[in-house]
């Protein structure tokens, strides 16, 4: 009789192979309602596992209010509040629609979304563009006039220009680009300067040949060059496209999703498909932008960006981005230790994404919930910090809560009860 451990190990290798085989290509940036299956004028997507309006943190509520006003579904904040709590809108996780979103993750019908196709498997994934250098915006949980105006600009100028540029260039292979960015010192979550530079370089010759005014192009380039982090949301869509084909492999205990909504952190594991397993969203170890803020001002961990850790980037590979560690006052030795930890709880490595200073070892890939629990060490998630009332106030890192991994392990065991696993 086969030991269940052999079945699990084989299944986990298969998941690692599927993740590794992913060929994400950034192919477009189009209006959400036109491209995301199931999206309607009354759908607003949010980050993390499912959560009702009443339990949402304030930044997420603010982002939804902003989206309602931006979409013209209400004419003032009071009306927007009534609509949000009325049950007449579909409020759902981005993940449920094949998408991901940064911080609050707010995605509504008229917003542009990056489209990434996993060419190896044919599936698509989506993510709203990063809002740039501003500490405000729906993603950061604000809904002031500036946030709404910026969302309109992204809809009217940024999205169409990026989309036309991507058509002209014929798509950008994100598997290759991420691999190069890692070699240039990105961990591709908190630090995306290399990836943003590479993307801009790919796009630039095509953008300048488009039939658009110099003013529009100038604003697009100003935006792209104003924030090193622009590439993150393309990378997130790439990661989202990679995890889908790795789901539903029987017996696998590898994590295929990690996401937070500011109240709960949730994971999915391959063998259990799209079931969520949650624990409390954790406090973020934050470097605040101003001494006026402290941990008491911060929202707990929030956003779908931890999809990048799910595919071996970000907090799993500080060794590849010592400057990221240094930004938090850490040392290279600490960066190495964190990455060694990740190797210990992962089922394999990504053969195409390698870390030069680890003798070109592939990045750790395939977080195995069994190993996480056995080690007592959960993955590190690089992140930004939102004020409890909205607005970006810092950057930092958080640990995933072990409760989510325990819940997933219990559910896994229950699903294999017939094999007489002793619980």
């Amino acid at each position, binding site marked *: 009789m086969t030991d269940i451990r052999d079945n699990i190990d084989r299944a986990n290798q298969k998941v690692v192979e599927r993740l590794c085989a992913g060929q994400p290509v950034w192919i477009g940036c189009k209006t959400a309602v036109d491209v995301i299956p199931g999206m309607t004028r009354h759908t607003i997507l949010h980050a993390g596992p499912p959560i009702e309006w009443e339990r949402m943190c304030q930044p997420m509520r603010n982002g939804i209010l902003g989206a309602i006003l931006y979409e013209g579904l209400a004419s003032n904040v009071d009306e927007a509040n009534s609509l949000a709590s009325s049950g007449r809108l579909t409020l759902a996780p981005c993940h449920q629609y094949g998408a991901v979103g940064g911080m609050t993750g707010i995605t509504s019908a008229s917003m542009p979304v990056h489209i990434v196709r996993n060419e190896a498997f044919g599936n698509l994934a989506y993510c709203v563009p990063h809002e740039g250098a501003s500490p405000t915006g729906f993603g950061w949980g604000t809904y002031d006039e500036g946030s709404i105006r910026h969302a309109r600009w992204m809809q009217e100028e940024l999205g169409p220009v990026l989309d036309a540029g991507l058509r002209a260039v014929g798509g950008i292979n994100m598997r290759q680009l991420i691999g190069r960015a890692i070699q240039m010192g990105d961990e591709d979550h908190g630090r995306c300067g290399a990836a943003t530079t590479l993307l801009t370089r790919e796009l630039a010759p095509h953008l300048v040949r488009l039939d658009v005014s110099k003013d529009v192009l100038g604003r697009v380039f100003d935006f792209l060059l104003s924030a090193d982090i622009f590439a993150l949301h393309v990378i997130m869509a790439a990661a989202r496209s990679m995890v889908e084909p790795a789901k539903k492999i029987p017996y696998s205990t590898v994590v295929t999703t990690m996401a937070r909504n500011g109240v709960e952190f949730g994971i999915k594991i391959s063998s259990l498909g799209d079931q969520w397993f949650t624990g409390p969203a954790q406090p973020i170890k934050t470097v605040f932008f101003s001494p006026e803020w402290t941990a008491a001002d911060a929202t707990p961990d929030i956003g779908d960006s931890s999809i990048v850790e799910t595919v071996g980037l970000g907090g799993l590979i500080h060794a590849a981005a010592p400057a990221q560690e240094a930004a938090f006052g850490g040392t290279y030795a600490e960066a190495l230790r964190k990455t060694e930890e990740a190797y210990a709880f992962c089922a394999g490595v990504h053969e195409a994404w390698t870390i030069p200073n680890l003798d070109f070892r592939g990045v750790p890939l395939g977080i195995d919930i069994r190993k996480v629990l*056995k080690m007592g060490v959960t993955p590190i998630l690089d992140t930004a910090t939102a004020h409890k009332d909205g607005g970006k106030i810092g950057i930092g890192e958080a640990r995933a809560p072990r409760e989510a991994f325990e819940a997933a392990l219990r559910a896994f065991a229950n699903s294999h009860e017939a094999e007489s*696993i*002793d619980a």
Partner: protein
Amino acid sequence: MADEAHSLSGALLLGEKKVVVNMGVEVFEDSLRRQGIEVVVVRWQPPRELPQDVARLLDRLL
């Protein structure tokens, strides 16, 4: 036994190259390195307590 212990400490004090193994608390590591002493660091912390049912499951599944 006493002689062996004595000669071991003598070798540590007088040997050309000293290597210190630092287990657990990491604060000692930096000060030893600053003194030019090679340090082998063993990351160690007391094992975290797992819920009993989870610990039992891990025994069967890992």
